[in-house]
C-alpha cells in the first residue's frame, strides 16, 4: 500500500459502523447503546472526511461540523431522557421498558441467573477505642 486511499478509509468506517451496530443491538445498558450510536456517527463522519479529501472540496468537512452539532444536541437530549427514565425505573436496563412494545409481541424474560457478585475484601476491623493498634515497626537504618 503506497498511501491510504479512499477504500481504506471507507473500510475503517465500515468496521466502526458495524461494531456500533452490534453494540446497539446487543447491549442492554442505555448509555452503552447510546455510545454505540455515537460510534456509528464517528464511522459516518470518517466517511465524509475521506470523501472530502479525495474529492478535493470541503463540503464533506462542513457536513461533519453539522454532524458534530447534531451529535451535541442528541447527547444533551438523550442524556436528559436517560436520566428521566432512570428516575422512573431506577435502572439503566433497556429491557425494563419492553412494555412499550406492541401488545402482541411476547415479553422477553431472562432465564439464566446472574453470577454472584465478586467477593470484595472484608472491611478492616477497628480496634477497641483507647487501645492503639499495633503498628509494624519500621527498621531504622541511619
Amino acid at each position, binding site marked *: 500500500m503506497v498511501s491510504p486511499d479512499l477504500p481504506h478509509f471507507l473500510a475503517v468506517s465500515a468496521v*466502526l459502523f458495524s461494531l456500533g451496530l452490534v453494540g446497539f443491538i446487543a447491549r442492554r445498558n442505555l448509555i452503552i447503546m447510546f455510545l454505540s450510536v455515537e460510534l456509528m456517527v464517528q464511522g459516518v463522519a470518517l466517511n465524509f472526511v475521506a470523501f472530502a479529501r479525495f474529492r478535493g472540496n470541503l463540503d464533506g468537512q462542513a457536513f461533519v461540523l453539522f454532524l458534530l452539532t447534531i451529535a451535541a444536541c442528541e447527547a444533551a437530549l438523550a442524556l436528559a431522557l436517560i436520566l428521566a427514565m432512570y428516575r422512573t425505573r431506577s435502572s439503566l436496563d433497556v429491557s425494563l421498558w419492553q412494555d412499550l412494545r406492541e401488545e402482541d409481541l411476547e415479553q422477553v424474560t431472562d432465564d439464566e441467573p*446472574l453470577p454472584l457478585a465478586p467477593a470484595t475484601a472484608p472491611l478492616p476491623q477497628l480496634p477497641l477505642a483507647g487501645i492503639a493498634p499495633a503498628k509494624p515497626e519500621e527498621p531504622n537504618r541511619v
Partner: protein
Amino acid sequence: MLVGMLGMMEAGAYPWSWWVLGPISLGFLGIYLLLPRPDGQRTATGSLLGVLGIAGLMALVLGGVIANVESLTFCVFSGVACLGAGFLVTLENPARAALAFVVVILGVAGLFLLAAAPFLMGANIIVYAGAIIVTFLFVLMLAQQHLPSDADSRSREPLLACICGAGSVLIILLAIGEDAGRTESYQEGFEARALVATRAPVAPFRRVGESDLRLNQGGVPAMPADNTAFLGATLYGRHLVAVELAAVLLVVATLGAIAVAQRTGAGGAL
C-alpha cells in the same frame, strides 16, 4: 479482532473480494465470545482471536513491499480506533466503555488528520472527548449500579447481533472492493480535482488568489495548509443558512434537555 480485516487492506489487495470473509469471521467470533453474558465472558478465547488478528495485521503490514510513514500511521490510528470500538462494545463496565469511546475518538481524530482535516480533528476531540464523554460519565456516576446487573452483564441476542454486524460489514466491504476494482486510483483523481476545487472554494467571502495557496513540489495545493480558512469560507458562504439553523437547533435542544430532565413535582423521586 476486526483489525485482521485491516490487514487484508494493507496488503494492497483491493479488490479484496471474498478474502475479507476470513477476518470478518474472526471478528464475528471474537465479538460474539466477548459480549457479556451471565455465565461469564469467554475473555481468553476472544482475546486470543484478537491477538491473532493483530498478529496477522502486523505480518501483512510489515511483509508488504512499501511501508511509508503515512500508511504506517494510518494502520496505527485505524487499529486504535477499531480496538477501542471492540472494547466499547464488549466491556461490561459502562464507565470503562465510555473511556474506550475516548480511545475511538482519538483514533478517528488521527484518521481525520491523515485525511487533511486538522480543524475537525481538534473539534472532534474537544466536542466528544471533552464535552460529551464528561456528561456521559456524569450520568453514569449518577446512575451507579453494582456490577453483575441485568443492564451490564446480559446481552440481547448476541448471536443475531453479531451476524447482523458481520453481514453489514461484509456487504459494505464487498461493495467498496468492487468499486475499488473499477477505478484505478483515487489519489490521482484527487490531485486533479484539488487543483480546480481549492482555487476558489467560495468566491464572495474570501478571494483566494494563487498567492494564497501553498503548493508542494508537484505544484499541487497542500490541502491541510489553509484548512480552517477554507472551511470557514465554505461554512459561511455556501452553508450559511444551515449554520443559522444549527444555532437554532442548539438552542431548542438545550431548552428541551432542561425541560425533559426537570423533576416534576412529587412524581419523580430519585
